[in-house]
């Protein structure tokens, strides 16, 4: 294998599994460390910059970060990343002074259709740059489906009010109760750009021919289902066909239909320059979120069908960047690379600026409200969130995967100290070879081929150092036991590019 290029921004980013899995690439270990230090406001602001709704997401995110979490491969359960985010929101001080000031207007006007997370994320990024953002929503208050569809016992209104309020407070104009019925009309109002974040508002129809409701004397007694199986056509599309098995009747008194949402754009006229595909979805560029009308952008569920809040936020950031570039006269297809900072965490001979002593604790449970009370009041939040002590315990379970093991081949004397100390048998010194062959010759099995091998250049004996990133605890013992400093623990921070980031095209730097 070729020596690993650790200066490529993606290499270390992938090692931080949670951050890589997060659509908004929130720097998870960084904010968890701040929580452990009791710096809740700092932790909140990192989240606020990256995912815009820490308090809301800390209760409702579908948390793609957690199945990715390295801790889940080391022991049974990942770190409760999502609920720690809520801790930052719950225990922060007044952060209003840290928010951007409403900027002097630059004379450009943006219309945002729908008041949900996608539109609000766009407004959050553009308003501080001086854009006049107007958000239209049929509901009287901002929040979209976060407000209208998520039960209050999971997400209280106060949290939505607070976090949508931070955005509207940036000088964003919110026109509640004003449903946009015609894109054509909106286009006629000469906005500099229009962002469609209208979601997937239509409840999906349940149109299943094989379904029969059984009634006796006018009263529902059950549902009979026909058994089906999935068949895939030449294009890989899924069709459900009768499997031939006997029908199955499920007795019941009532039927709830919960088969999801779908998109609906009856308000977009055919002559608006917006092309639709055969599934009646607008043609949207997955990178820039522009539609076939260069002034109209889509994001959130409106762009690619129902997803969830964190995806809507990620779309919002990217769309905002496109809008900013388009209005600035730049090519929206040129996406600036994120800026990367890598810095040594060494403080002394055996001292690091992070807590490298690995906690053996199992995942802490989030306390719930007493069931008697919770069942009585449908609006009473069921999860109470971690208290400070539980939050500290859970935060300590984080392995600090962003503190990277960085290896310098010229300094290595091949003394084996790192191999001997590594608790996870991650490190092997061996003859180089092709990846599949190398994976066979590692000190411990390598079952996850999606996890990178970190391969050094040639060492003095002609061998190479190979580190399987898979289950590294980032405990830094390799670096502590290294006599020459060939191993160092370096914190990797990646700054995702948002609209208005300074030095947008500056070359990134890495170790």
């Amino acid at each position, binding site marked *: 294998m070729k020596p690993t290029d650790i200066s490529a921004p993606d290499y270390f980013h992938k090692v931080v599994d949670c951050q890589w899995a997060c659509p908004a690439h929130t720097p998870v270990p960084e904010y968890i460390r701040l929580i452990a230090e009791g710096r809740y406001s700092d932790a909140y602001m990192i989240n606020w910059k990256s995912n815009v709704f820490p308090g809301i997401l800390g209760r409702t995110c579908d948390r793609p970060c957690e199945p990715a979490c390295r801790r889940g491969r080391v022991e049974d359960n990942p770190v409760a990343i999502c609920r720690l985010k809520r801790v930052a929101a719950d225990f922060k001080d007044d952060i209003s002074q840290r928010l951007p000031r409403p900027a002097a207007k630059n004379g450009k006007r943006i219309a945002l259709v729908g008041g949900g997370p996608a539109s609000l994320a766009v407004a959050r990024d553009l308003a501080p740059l001086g854009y006049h953002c107007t958000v239209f929503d049929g509901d009287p208050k901002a929040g979209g489906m976060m407000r209208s569809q998520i039960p209050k016992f999971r997400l209280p209104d106060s949290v939505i009010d607070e976090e949508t309020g931070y955005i509207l407070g940036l000088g964003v104009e919110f026109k509640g109760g004003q449903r946009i019925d015609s894109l054509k009309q909106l286009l006629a109002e000469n906005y500099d750009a229009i962002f469609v974040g209208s979601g997937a508002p239509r409840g999906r129809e349940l149109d299943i021919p094989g379904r029969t409701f059984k009634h006796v004397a006018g009263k529902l007694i059950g549902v009979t289902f026909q058994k089906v199986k999935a068949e895939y056509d030449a294009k890989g599309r899924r069709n459900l066909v009768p499997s031939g098995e006997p029908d199955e009747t499920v007795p019941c008194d009532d039927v709830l239909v919960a088969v999801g949402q779908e998109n609906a754009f009856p308000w977009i006229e055919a002559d608006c320059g917006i092309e639709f595909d055969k599934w009646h979805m607008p043609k949207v560029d997955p990178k820039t979120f522009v539609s076939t009308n260069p002034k109209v952008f889509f994001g959130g569920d409106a762009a690619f069908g129902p997803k969830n809040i964190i995806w809507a936020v990620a779309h919002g950031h990217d769309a905002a960047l496109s809008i900013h570039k388009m209005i600035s006269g730049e090519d929206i297809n040129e996406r600036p690379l994120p800026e990367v900072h890598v810095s040594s965490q060494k403080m002394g001979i055996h001292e690091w600026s992070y807590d490298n002593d690995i906690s053996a604790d199992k995942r802490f449970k989030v306390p719930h409200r007493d069931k008697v009370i919770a069942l009585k009041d449908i609006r009473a939040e069921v999860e109470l969130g971690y208290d400070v002590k539980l939050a500290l315990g859970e935060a300590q379970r984080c392995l600090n995967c962003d503190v990277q093991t960085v290896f310098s081949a010229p300094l290595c004397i091949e003394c084996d100290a790192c191999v001997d*100390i590594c608790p996870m048998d991650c490190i092997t010194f061996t003859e180089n070879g092709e990846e599949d062959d190398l994976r066979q010759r590692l000190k411990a099995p390598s079952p996850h081929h999606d996890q990178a091998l970190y391969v050094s250049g040639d060492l003095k004996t002609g061998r190479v150092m190979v580190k399987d990133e898979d289950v590294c605890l980032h405990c830094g013992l390799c670096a502590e036991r290294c006599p020459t400093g060939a191993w160092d623990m370096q914190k990797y921070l990646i700054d995702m590019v948002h609209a208005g980031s300074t030095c947008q095209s500056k070359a990134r730097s890495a170790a």
Partner: protein
Amino acid sequence: MTYIAKPKFHHPGLRKNELGYTHRDYEGKISTLCAGCGHDSITASIIEACYELSIEPHRVAKISGIGCSSKTPDYFLGNSHGFNSVHGRMPSVLTGANLANRDLIYLGVSGDGDSASIGFGQFAHSIRRGVNMTYIVENNGVYGLTKGQFSATADRGSKSKKGVTNTDNAIDLVAIALQLGATFVARSFSGDKTQLVPLIAAAIRHKGASFIDVISPCIAFNNHAGSTKSFDYVREHNDAVNRLDVLVGREPISVDYAPGTVQVVEQHDGTRLALRKLDADYDPHDRLGAQTFLQKHAAKGQIVTGLLYVDPEAEDLHTHLDTVETPLNALDEKALCPGSAVLDKINASLR
């Protein structure tokens, strides 16, 4: 040294040996030696060898003297018996323990100061008596704990870190062990675990006095240009005479070497040592030849490593003394005090 404990987590895919242990189960406390110390690699090799042999940790007694090397038994086999004895007195304590309980596996861990200076006589007598043990010298050629003075194994002409040339002749512990009748003699290098681990495993399975001299660079005081015990020097001058595979049990030898290049040595307990010859002329059963070979190569500045001598039919001290099979510490009062009739008989035989 490191302040945090080594995390208990281990790789989820670690292999287990016949006892259901992973190699992590053979570890001890975290090392307090300097970062990069060769001794830590020897520790790791002992752990690996005991794991590979599926040794029950409570059947091992690890005994040491004083020095950096003699601290290491704290870092492996945390569930074994241990005795950190007086400087240079490991061989006597080990001999005594072995006489009292012949059933344990004895690991004597010592250094070049502990064995070639203050304990030189102790070393000699334990070898000469054929105590059933594995005697490992972690040989770095300097007194590390007192900041790097030459030890008795430092080569004449080698330079200290401060640039002083050693004018004394070196003691070659391997040569002495051969002369004193050790029945398993090997030399290896802490930086070459593929060689060292099977040597330790074979030595543990050998019945008799096994001696292994392991060159172990001292990162702090003896890893500079001019040293003959540095990583670079040993790697450049290492002359391995053979490579070893240890085969426990009856499985056929399926080592795919060219015919005639592998020599199989069967030890007393059935352990087979598959020796892959690297030097066609070297015969590990020729004690005298080994001594000559060593001295010739030492004169050329080469460090001969590998299994240098083995007597598969070796006997140990208990055989020489004709002691009972039952360990002495397990003999009950009835066995130890057979009664006045027996005493009378003995007395009568002496009249």
